[in-house]
């Protein structure tokens, strides 16, 4: 975490991807009418899933299924269950947030952000550092368990808000089958089946365009984050804001502790730690609108998309890589 870290961080912050996010936030704060149509935003997200899923599957086709993959997935699921519990009690301890809001926020941090995952893989590629392709599947299995944890917490601590008539089963099924998870795992399976030979003809679309499309998607995320900041700022106390930076670091530390059990390479460990540190902003918010409708989106979305995501993008990713480096050794 010395000059190497600062170089990485600077290189990261001045990459087009991060700058387009900054442009989006700036445009939204300045009330520009710049916007990406919903249909495009949705398709860009699907494209990213398709691309990383396919590429991850092709990697696994090369190496084959390993025990390491199973161990990493198990560790990921455990983290997804555990992080919301840690987050919930931390948030209750440091802020006056009602239990239902705290549970909803905690769910976001237990789940993952696929764009943060992508940004971490891009940073590794920039350094020529390899990572395990199966981490794409690990990311997918880490999406849902956190929601279960959060619902249990809400039912215990805010029984009136957590509607006990709403059965959890169908909700989890819905989340598990949500479009982005299916796209990610489906493309992963197709990449695995067809292997490098299957990737070749689609590479100009799925590989070459990837970074440019990512810039456009991050511009969009910046616009949405900036819009959310403008609206959500007033609902956030200093303690809650601090949580948005402390919690990803805490999640990263928990993941780093599990790294030795997974047997991941340095690159893979950096990704794994980043996944734990990242917070969902697409799948979990939608689930929360159904399961915990009284929780305020202005709080969980501003924290996840307005604080934690930019923090991870700019500073977190090189930090987690450094952390993972220690854990692997």
């Amino acid at each position: 975490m010395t000059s190497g870290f600062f170089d990485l961080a600077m290189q990261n912050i001045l990459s087009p991807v991060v700058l387009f996010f900054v442009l989006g936030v700036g445009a939204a704060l300045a009330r520009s009418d710049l916007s990406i149509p919903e249909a495009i935003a949705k398709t860009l997200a699907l494209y990213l899933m398709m691309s990383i899923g396919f590429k991850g599957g092709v990697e696994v086709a090369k190496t084959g299924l390993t025990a390491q993959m199973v161990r990493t997935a198990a560790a990921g699921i455990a983290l997804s269950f555990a992080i919301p519990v840690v987050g919930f009690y931390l948030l209750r301890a440091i802020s006056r947030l009602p239990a239902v809001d705290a549970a909803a926020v905690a769910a976001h941090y237990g789940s993952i952000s696929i764009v943060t995952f992508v940004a971490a893989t891009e940073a590794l590629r920039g350094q020529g550092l390899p990572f395990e392709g199966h981490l794409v599947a690990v990311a997918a299995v880490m999406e849902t368990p956190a929601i279960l944890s959060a619902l249990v917490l809400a039912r215990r601590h805010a029984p009136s808000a957590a509607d006990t008539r709403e059965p959890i089963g169908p909700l989890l099924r819905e989340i598990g089958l949500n479009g982005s998870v299916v796209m990610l795992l489906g493309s992963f399976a197709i990449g695995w089946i067809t292997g490098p030979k299957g990737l070749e003809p689609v590479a100009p679309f799925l590989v070459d365009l990837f970074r440019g499309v990512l810039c456009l998607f991050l511009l969009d995320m910046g616009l949405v984050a900036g819009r959310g900041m403008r609206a959500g700022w007033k609902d956030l106390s200093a303690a809650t804001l601090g949580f948005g930076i402390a919690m990803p670091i805490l999640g990263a530390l928990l993941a780093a502790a599990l790294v030795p059990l997974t047997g991941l390479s340095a690159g893979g460990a950096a990704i794994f730690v980043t996944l734990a540190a990242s917070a969902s902003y697409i799948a979990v918010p939608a689930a929360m609108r159904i399961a915990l409708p009284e929780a305020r989106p202005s709080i969980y979305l501003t924290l996840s998309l307005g604080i934690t995501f930019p923090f991870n993008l700019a500073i977190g990713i090189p930090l987690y890589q450094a952390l993972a480096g220690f854990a692997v050794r």
Partner: protein
Amino acid sequence: MVDMHPKKRVEIVMEAPALHRLTDALDKAGVTGYTIVSALAGRGLSGAWSREGLAGDAGRMVIVICIVDAARADAVIAGVHKLLARQIGVVTMSDVQVIRADHF
């Protein structure tokens, strides 16, 4: 001249993620159909929103239009009310005339 018959038009502005729950409730309430429109933006007591740029369903609203028989309207409204009680949304009902009474 075409014969017209009085019916009720129920219009529901609601959050997109809960849409399936609502249509399930309408199906159960025995309505013969409904039409859904995607809203572009809006403002309410809980603030302003816009669908522009959203990659997911959260933060987006839809409008459900449902023509029902007056006799069934109360039951439909009650079902919708129960479901949306804790959700963000607006429910209105108005009088309309339709041309094919047997359809509703």
